[in-house]
């Protein structure tokens, strides 16, 4: 008898607890993850000082120095610009991942979509930039980059809609394909003629470099990202399409019963996600990198997942989490130079944040499962749960 009572009491307790923390959770959870990650990072730095760098003893002050350098690199006047520059592709690709989550799709293809955006922009700079002014080249390069990214998102979307192939699998596989398409494009058709080793054209010599609008290297792409945030928010929360995307993510069967064409929604959402990531790639090439050697790759696609998870898929939140990860990236170098802490530490911090967030998502997912007795979740249900948990 007491067994039954215990279950009921536990359920009641958990309901109360959930209600209590429910209000604060959207902000509290990511914040807790960040703080915890910084603490674990501090332990890593202390260990590093004693075991790796062989300072005379474990240097308890080093984490302070390292984080101070990190902060300086991220928020000094030049650092602030760097933060914005690094945040730009993270926000754009992060919005893409967030839209996917809202629709119940886990888009891991940011890497390939970003790279296609880069290739598209480079192609325009290479072909058009020699004869046209920057007023034509730059918008065209951004547009083509975005469309190439959208195409890279369209493929897994269409595969899912037509054959049910899971987008996690297809986007991951497609990433590899697109990495090598990029490799081929830069060392083949887009290679600079006459160069002793393969390298692309310098977009600055082709009227395609984004104008600097802020500080030393704050390019126009920052504005593109900051404008994309309210646009995506508006799309998701104030348009019919946005409602359908969210409805399909919440419960795709119900959405279908409600008369929504969910297959069309999948293709549209994935294309839109690709478009945003592609725009991230295009702005990075035109605003920062300018000239690319074969082997060019990016971590933006994966970092964007952290960005979207941190933001719980809220577009406004994406802006803040994108800025946070951008700041970490901007400060990483100062941390290396001033405190001698290896750059991998910032990767570690990011990974710890991600792990903590995923653990949270998993925990809630398990909570949810234990409530709906013994249902066997399919892969699709997994993603829906993930979307639900991050929504």
């Amino acid at each position: 008898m007491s067994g039954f009572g215990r279950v009921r009491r536990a359920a009641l307790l958990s309901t109360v607890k959930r209600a209590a923390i429910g209000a604060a959770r959207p902000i509290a959870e990511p914040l807790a993850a960040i703080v915890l990650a910084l603490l674990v990072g501090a332990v890593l730095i202390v260990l590093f000082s004693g075991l790796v760098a062989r300072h005379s003893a474990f240097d308890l002050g080093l984490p302070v120095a390292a984080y101070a350098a990190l902060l300086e690199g991220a928020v000094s006047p030049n650092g602030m610009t760097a933060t914005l520059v690094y945040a730009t592709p993270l926000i754009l690709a992060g919005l893409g991942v967030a839209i996917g989550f809202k629709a119940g799709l886990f888009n891991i293809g940011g890497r390939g979509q970003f790279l296609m955006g880069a290739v598209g922009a480079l192609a325009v700079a290479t072909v058009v930039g020699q004869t046209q002014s920057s007023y034509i080249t730059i918008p065209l390069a951004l547009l083509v980059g975005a469309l190439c990214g959208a195409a890279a998102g369209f493929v897994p979307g269409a595969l899912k809609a037509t054959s049910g192939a899971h987008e996690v699998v297809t986007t991951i596989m497609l990433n590899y394909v697109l990495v090598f398409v990029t490799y081929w494009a830069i060392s083949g058709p887009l290679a600079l003629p006459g160069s002793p080793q393969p390298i692309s054209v310098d977009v600055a010599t082709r009227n395609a470099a984004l104008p600097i609008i802020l500080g030393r290297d704050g390019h126009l792409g920052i504005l593109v990202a900051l404008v994309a945030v309210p646009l995506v928010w508006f799309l998701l929360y104030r348009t019919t399409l946005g409602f359908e995307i969210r409805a399909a993510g919440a419960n795709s069967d119900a959405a279908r019963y409600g008369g929504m064409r969910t297959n069309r929604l999948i293709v549209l959402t994935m294309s839109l996600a690709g478009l945003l990531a592609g725009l991230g790639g295009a702005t990075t090439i035109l605003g920062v990198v300018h000239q690319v050697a074969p082997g060019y790759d990016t971590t933006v696609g994966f970092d964007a997942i952290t960005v979207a998870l941190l933001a719980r898929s809220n577009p406004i939140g994406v802006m803040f989490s994108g800025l946070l990860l951008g700041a970490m990236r901007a400060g990483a170098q100062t941390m290396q130079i001033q405190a001698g802490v290896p750059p991998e530490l910032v990767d570690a911090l990011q990974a710890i944040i991600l792990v903590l967030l995923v653990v949270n998502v998993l925990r809630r997912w398990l909570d949810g499962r234990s409530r709906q007795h013994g249902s066997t979740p399919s892969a699709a249900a997994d993603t829906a749960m993930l979307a639900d948990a991050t929504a």
Partner: protein
Amino acid sequence: MTGNVRTVFGLLATAALVAACSSSGASTAPSAGSTLKIGVVTDVGKVDDKNFNQYSYEGAQKAAADLGATVQYVVPKDASDYAKDIQGFVDQKFNIIVTVGFALGTDTIKAAKANPDVWFLAVDVAPCVDEAGAPDGTFACKGDASKLLPKLIGITFQEDQAGYLAGIVSAAVSKTGKIGQIGAINNNPAVVRYLQGFQLGAKSYNPNVTVETAFFSTGDPNKAYADPVWGKTFSTQFIDQKGVDVLFQVAGGTGNGALDAACEKNILAIGVDVDQYNSYTTADKCIVTSAEKHLSSAVNQTIKAISGSTAKGGVSTFNAKNDGVGYSPFHNTSIPIPAGVQAKLDAAVAGMKDGSLKTCPDKCGTWTQP
């Protein structure tokens, strides 16, 4: 996530490297009275890649240890970090900034132009600038980099000497008297110099040896440098048709495919640029030696020249005379090296040092079908 794994490896790797560094007495703390600060921007990847990154950084470390200078490195995560990482050292008032590899060339030239008071060392880059001292995208190189950018030093190597030494070893270990060399492309002077030196070196050991030559591509840079699958296919065919039993390759990633092909065909292979027995371990069982650029030594010497005020802007060429090129140790004990080879190698190096040995034909760097 892969980032996690990479991080762990990265930390371990840094551990090993920094441990090695501190045991050799180098320290990141600036010593009294010295204000020299050396910054190294590696290419993407790792600082301990057993390749360009690692050896260039080691050179900077050695110089710093001897001069009592500070040395710090930054590893870009991807190409979007290049310019910022260079600028980061400029902002922190570093006096000497070393950048590693061809991909950083343009950003290094731009930084040198914008910061005329800072010394820049571009490893494996011959700076090509226009009349204004800006990077020249057309490769006409009309500007005189040594005058326009007097504090930019492009560190280059005399590849034919390294090739010559590798040629001696190849001719010595060949049983059939037929050896092969495959270059990336026939219009890259550095590639051609390696091959020309290799040919002369092989003939010097055994005048009757046949040296078969081919190129991975005549126009497609992707096939030439970046396509290991093509490298393997092409080399397999080359080995079958020409019947060579030693293969030398000068072709970056494509060349790695050639090393694989040699292993698979059970013939011997020669590495290039760095000690590929260590850097490309997939093929270590068939690599006899490598035609090496001594990156560490070149960087070390150049930094010391700057510190001693004897350095000049422009291209700084390294060769046997200044320990800039050489051959890798014979790690692989299962490959017997005939007696007398060492003496020949020593004699060749001595000849290169006193200038009596010619390691490249008159049209050095231009390929003409023999």
